[in-house]
């Protein structure tokens, strides 16, 4: 087992890559808050933020400065350590998933090696994402409990039960997809969706597993705590939900973590189901331009798909009203899980009868 075969150049490469990815996710999340308000404004026939800078583009900066400068209030009877731990965990878990995502094709180096645009190509990438997602709820639960407020506690409990319920359907829907690709490595899954059309059918997993995609995206909404599943921060019942007692940048971290999660899950959705950095006619493009440009185009394609998904998340939020809690549980346990199970069975049977290697 080679556990620690590290060279300085590799470490440097990874450090730069991680910094760029973190910076990019933070930047995109920052402008998602702006885009969310613009999208909401357009859908409600308003103008949205338009004072700070052209088209209100400096609005996220102004919001950040405001949150940093606000007075910080910590409830006296709560556990101070856990109170601070809550938003930190939410932020940490939001940033961790990006480690296993392949952001683009490898960049060839002059000496024959390649620079991988993926922080860690572990052979259990999909499971790693699940691990981080399943831990993500701790930030909300701990914060909600440490606030020493009944509404926050209820909100934390809601978030926990919702996350656990929808994780099941999410996992089962992914099993069907993993059975087709035969690998849990995200790099491998993306590579198998090369191009757009091969052997008389689309290569992207969306066209092979549409039901799995629909189940997965519904569960992604639930895991993100976004409308129509934002029961954890349901204003009409729970005031502000788990962040009722939070102020200043700790509140900002909770709100911001949601936008980072949204960006990351958009990237995961595009990697798993919409071909990641693959696009139609990519071989023709690859033959005609330099390898560095190929990688850059790949990254841009992935980001483009992710932004499409972010906009989709926003359109849904401003279109569909919030679910009631029992409806949420019924949808998760009585519709999505049986559907995912049937999908898995059918996929297994089809693979066994039509594609088994004999």
């Amino acid at each position: 087992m080679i556990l620690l075969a590290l060279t300085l150049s590799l470490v440097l490469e990874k450090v730069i890559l991680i910094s760029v990815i973190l910076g990019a996710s933070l930047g995109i999340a920052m402008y998602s808050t702006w885009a969310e308000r613009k999208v909401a404004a357009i859908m409600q026939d308003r103008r949205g933020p338009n004072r700070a800078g052209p088209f209100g583009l400096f609005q996220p900066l102004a919001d950040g400065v405001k949150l940093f400068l606000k007075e910080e209030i910590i409830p006296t009877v709560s556990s101070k350590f856990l109170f601070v731990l809550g938003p930190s965990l939410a932020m940490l878990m939001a940033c961790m998933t990006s480690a296993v995502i392949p952001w683009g094709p490898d960049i060839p180096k002059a000496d024959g090696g390649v620079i991988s645009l993926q922080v860690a190509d572990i052979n259990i990438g999909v499971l790693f994402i699940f691990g981080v997602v399943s831990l993500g709820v701790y930030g909300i639960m701990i914060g909600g409990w440490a606030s020493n407020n009944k509404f926050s506690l209820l909100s934390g409990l809601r978030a926990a039960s919702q996350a656990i319920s929808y994780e099941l359907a999410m996992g089962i829907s992914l099993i069907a997809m993993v059975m087709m690709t035969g690998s849990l490595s995200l790099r491998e899954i993306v590579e198998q969706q090369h191009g757009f059309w091969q052997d008389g059918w689309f290569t992207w997993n969306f066209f092979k597993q549409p039901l799995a995609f629909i189940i997965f995206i519904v569960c992604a909404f639930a895991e993100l705590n976004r409308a129509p599943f934002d029961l954890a921060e349901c204003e009409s019942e729970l005031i502000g939900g788990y962040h009722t007692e939070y102020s200043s940048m700790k509140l900002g971290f909770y709100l911001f973590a949601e936008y980072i999660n949204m960006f990351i899950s958009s990237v995961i959705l595009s990697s798993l189901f919409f071909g990641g950095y693959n696009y139609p006619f990519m071989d023709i493009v690859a033959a005609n331009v330099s390898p560095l440009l190929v990688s850059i185009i790949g990254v841009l394609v992935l980001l483009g798909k992710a932004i499409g998904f972010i906009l989709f998340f926003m359109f849904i939020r401003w279109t569909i009203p919030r679910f009631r809690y029992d409806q949420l549980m019924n949808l998760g346990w009585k519709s999505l899980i049986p559907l995912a199970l049937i999908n898995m069975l059918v996929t297994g049977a089809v693979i066994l009868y039509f594609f088994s290697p004999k």
Partner: protein
Amino acid sequence: MDIHQIIFWVLSIMTLGLAVGVIMSRSPINSVLFLILTFFTISGQYIAMNAQFLAIVNVIVYAGAIMVLFLFVIMLMNLNGDTEPQKNFLVQFAGVISGGSLLLIFVAALKSSYTGLEGKQIELAQSSDIGLIKNLGHALFTDYVFPFEIASVLFLSAMIGAVVLGKREKDELDVVVE
């Protein structure tokens, strides 16, 4: 000491320290959080033994799902110093006796299998790929398929039992509606 041994010792000391934290902390919430950290260090041990699948499943199932439910229940119980039940002397005595005998059995079991264990373990950890998901799946679904299926039937029956217990009786439902 090579790097694996250093990692092993660091992780072991952390695991034991955090496990002591579980039983020493006054607040049950802190106990659960210590337990979650303990699971993480155990996952670290699995990774050091090249068993990535076990490591991540340990995180997903234990730290991610079961501990969330633990935390859920403890948060609802609202435990604090005033409401904590005072155990009488007899219960404490019984606890000490049973815990001590469990420790005795563990020590005896470990002692009898200790000879040559250390070398074997390191050898296993460094040469074996059984923890990788492909090999593990292959072993589970060919050599050990019967025990595997028995275990899954057991889980299924437990699940159905929980659903049956959780289901309200019909007359009980009517009372709630009234």
